[in-house]
């Protein structure tokens, strides 16, 4: 409580009369890593936009004090001038420009409007070294993976003489290696005196690197306390986030497994452009009625490619293999055919593949099953509204009305809309790809409940996830996939994170996976 660099007091921000922030206060000490936690829709991102001037001074109530002096930012440029730099969840780099050009975009090393390329590249190289990115400064950003792009963003922030670095869910899209590197870097920057504010859902991360955590719920500060490395801290954060103790991360379930429902044999998929490359190699698997089957694999192992190619060949080329439902071979040559044959695929990228973000909840829920609501091509819109409203209640979608635009909902509520859409399509086989990505603890629990309910109704449920505890907690059986091949099959009793990881990294182990 001694050296406060940033103090936000009584911040109130309204959108169309709805309070997103209702008197939030945060105090950040100099040179600490300060975590902000809260469910989706709690107001974390809004708070950071207030701080960084995205919402200009005057559009909210409350005060912001930096280094003891009150500030009034009119735009993001003003806050950056003071060394407050925000790195958004969706990275904002220009793909066709080089790393160096991106780092100094809007802040070019110049004299009289002419860029000094030598100094640009030199300084860029220094910054890259500081963030531990081994790439030439001339490399185009589109050639970099998400993890490396994140480092470029940080280098960009450093070039602006950053004092307070704000990271909005920095590891949401990163694999474990990249996450570890990024977290290490944040600690390193702290040692150099840079204060960080990190928004994250991942409690393990917070526990590992944060010094202090502030929990926000429903637009209000719940509590703020120092973080030490213990299990109690996670429990305390969760309790503050959801407003109740969470006894278990997973809702209880009595599996009732029926006969074989879904079988895939010798499924092979080639890359859509590089048509020689095999992305999925002779995969065979089964799912029984009422069973939840997990698919574990590292990024790029072919999990999503397997699922999307089965779902109407929406990925890949040169696809071969057979798909059976209830013992009869079915065709899934187009998405429409897959849906008609009772397959549903909930995408890992809901904004790109799952939702019409400018459409209402109603039109999104009905999108995959309009035929059920239409006669002779004419939609019964009253029934459609009633269906959407029913799902709003069942799924606990938090919204004033189902006429609301989906793009304005929080991530967890958007995911519930996508789930509603596919459940309404009445599938026998439900494929869920990263169903809880970017979703807070409370909404996760609800979504697990929905998944269990689907299994209880006798559907064959497939869950693809990068989070191994989630797979273990949810699945009856888990397949592992590595380099396009199924490398293992473990039942619930034998699945541990270590065992799964061993199979996920064990490429070229033959003969596993098929019963």
């Amino acid at each position, binding site marked *: 409580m001694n050296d406060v660099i940033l103090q936000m007091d009584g911040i109130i921000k309204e959108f169309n009369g709805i309070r997103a922030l209702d008197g939030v206060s945060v105090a950040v000490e100099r040179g600490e890593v300060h975590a902000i936690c809260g469910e989706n829709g709690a107001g974390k991102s809004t708070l950071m936009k207030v701080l960084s001037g995205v919402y200009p001074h005057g559009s909210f109530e409350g005060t912001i004090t930096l280094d003891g002096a009150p500030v009034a930012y009119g735009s993001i440029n003003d806050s950056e001038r003071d060394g407050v730099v925000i790195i958004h969840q969706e990275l904002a780099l220009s793909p066709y420009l080089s790393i160096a050009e991106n780092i100094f975009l809007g802040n070019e090393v110049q004299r009289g409007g002419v860029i000094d390329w030598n100094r640009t590249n030199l300084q860029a190289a220094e910054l890259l070294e500081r963030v531990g990115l081994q790439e030439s400064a001339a490399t185009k950003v589109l050639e970099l993976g998400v993890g490396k792009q994140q480092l470029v963003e940080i280098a960009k922030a450093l070039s602006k003489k950053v004092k307070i670095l704000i990271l909005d869910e920095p590891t949401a899209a990163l694999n474990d290696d990249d996450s570890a590197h990024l977290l290490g870097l944040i600690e390193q920057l702290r040692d150099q005196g840079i204060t960080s504010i990190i928004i994250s859902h991942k409690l393990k991360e917070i526990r590992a690197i944060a010094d202090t955590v502030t929990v926000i719920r429903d637009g209000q500060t719940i509590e703020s306390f120092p973080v030490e490395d213990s299990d109690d801290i996670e429990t305390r954060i969760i309790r503050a986030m959801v407003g109740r103790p969470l006894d278990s991360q997973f809702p209880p379930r009595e599996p009732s497994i029926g006969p074989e429902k879904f079988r895939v044999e010798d499924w092979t998929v080639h890359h859509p452009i590089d048509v020689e490359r095999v992305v999925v190699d002779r995969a065979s698997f089964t799912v029984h009625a009422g069973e939840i089957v997990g698919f574990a694999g590292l990024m790029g192992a072919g999990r999503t490619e397997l699922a999307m190619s089965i779902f109407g060949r929406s990925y890949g080329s040169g696809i071969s293999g057979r798909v059976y439902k209830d013992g009869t071979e079915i065709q899934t040559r187009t*998405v429409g055919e897959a849906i008609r044959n009772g397959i549903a695929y909930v*995408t890992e990228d809901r904004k*790109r593949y799952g939702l019409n973000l400018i*459409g209402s909840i109603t039109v999104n829920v009905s999108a995959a099953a309009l035929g059920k609501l239409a006669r002779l091509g004419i939609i019964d*819109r009253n029934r459609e509204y009633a269906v959407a409203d029913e799902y709003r209640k069942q799924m606990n979608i938090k919204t004033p009305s189902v006429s609301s635009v989906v793009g*304005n909902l929080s991530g967890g509520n958007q995911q519930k809309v996508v789930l509603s859409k596919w459940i*309404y399509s009445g599938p026998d086989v439900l494929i869920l790809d990263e169903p809880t990505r970017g979703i807070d603890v409370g909404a996760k629990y609800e979504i697990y409940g929905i998944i269990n309910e689907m299994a209880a109704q006798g559907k064959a449920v497939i869950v693809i996830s990068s989070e191994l505890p989630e797979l273990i907690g949810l699945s009856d059986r888990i397949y592992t996939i590595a380099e396009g091949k199924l490398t293992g099959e473990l039942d619930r009793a034998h699945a541990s994170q270590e065992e799964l990881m061993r199979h996920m990294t064990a490429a070229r182990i033959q003969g596993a996976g098929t019963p």
Partner: protein
Amino acid sequence: MTTTTPEQATAPVPPSAGTVRKKRRRVDMRQYGILAALAVIILLFQVLTGGRLLYPGNVSNLIQQNAYVLILAIGMVIVIIAGHIDLSVGSIVATVGAVAALSMNSWGLPWGAAVALSLLVGALIGAWQGFWVAFVGIPAFIVTLAGMLVFRGVALVLLTGGTVSGLPRAFNSIGSGTLPATGSPDLITLGIGALASLALVVQQLKGRADLRRLNLPRERTVSFVLKIAIAVVAIMYLCYLLAYNRGTPIILIILATLVLLYSFLLSRTVFGRHVYAMGGNLYAAMMSGVKTKWVNFFIFVNMGFLAGLAGVVSTARAGSAVASAGGSFELDAIAAVFIGGAAVQGGVGTVVGAVIGGLVMGVLNQGLSILSVDAAWQQVIKGLVLLLAVAFDVYSKRRTGR
């Protein structure tokens, strides 16, 4: 946590008393904004022209002279909602106009067959462009830019001799004729107005009754009644003006039919929903099983068909076909659609909005002509109106938090 099967989900559950009051079906202010703008422009010119804008003869003229924009705007709004653009419609108008005139004058077809052939030619041109857009994957901007050149050229080739005139009177009346009239005032026109008003009231009441029966949110009674009252007054006033001129223009009947048909198509049918879904997020539409290629194809077939109709109407109005017909029609139609509230990125727009946008352009044309403003300045003014309309739209969207 329970989750219903689809059948359960359809059963409406009576909402608790607390939620009923809050839930009103949202009124689309955007649509009313443009309608208000149209009203303001009409009043403005009514004052500036000393009341001449709404002379019965001028109103009839306004409808007949601007029918082509409205017809094209109806097709164009669908194209634009789906995320495309069509630059070729003006050239299609010229080609189809040439086909219509030649088929009657040189090939000896009766006027009915000529109209049918013209519409078919329009649809075929649309199919040609739709093929390239939908199945080859060339951006519509390029395909229709090519089409703009190609079909202007075709029109020139067909009409090597220059103007083809002396078309049958029955054909010309599509563009400039009226339904038979009983005199002044024309009772048939007034009757049509009364019927249309009655139909509107009945349809609105029935829709509201359905909402009440299913316990779905409804508009406030005051605004509902007010809305219908204004619409009925507008319809009856229009018919009153027409009744004191020569009666109902034939083209008005065609336009009204198109507006009703296409509004229904976009807002109530699976096809319409697919158009909006593709404009909102093409990938999400594909992954929901929408046959996006076929939808794109039919959007362009339809645009070609309507461009063909616009060709017939404008040729009939002019009474002759020239290769330069339809010049900058595509720009008028695109402007109408954007003034009517469609989004450049696609996914947003309505038929009614596009038609109102077209009427704004039409009233501007008519009003400025009555004031004998120079044609060059008319262009400047229309350009600025387009810019301001879209700027206002962008501004109001930003203010309401996107």
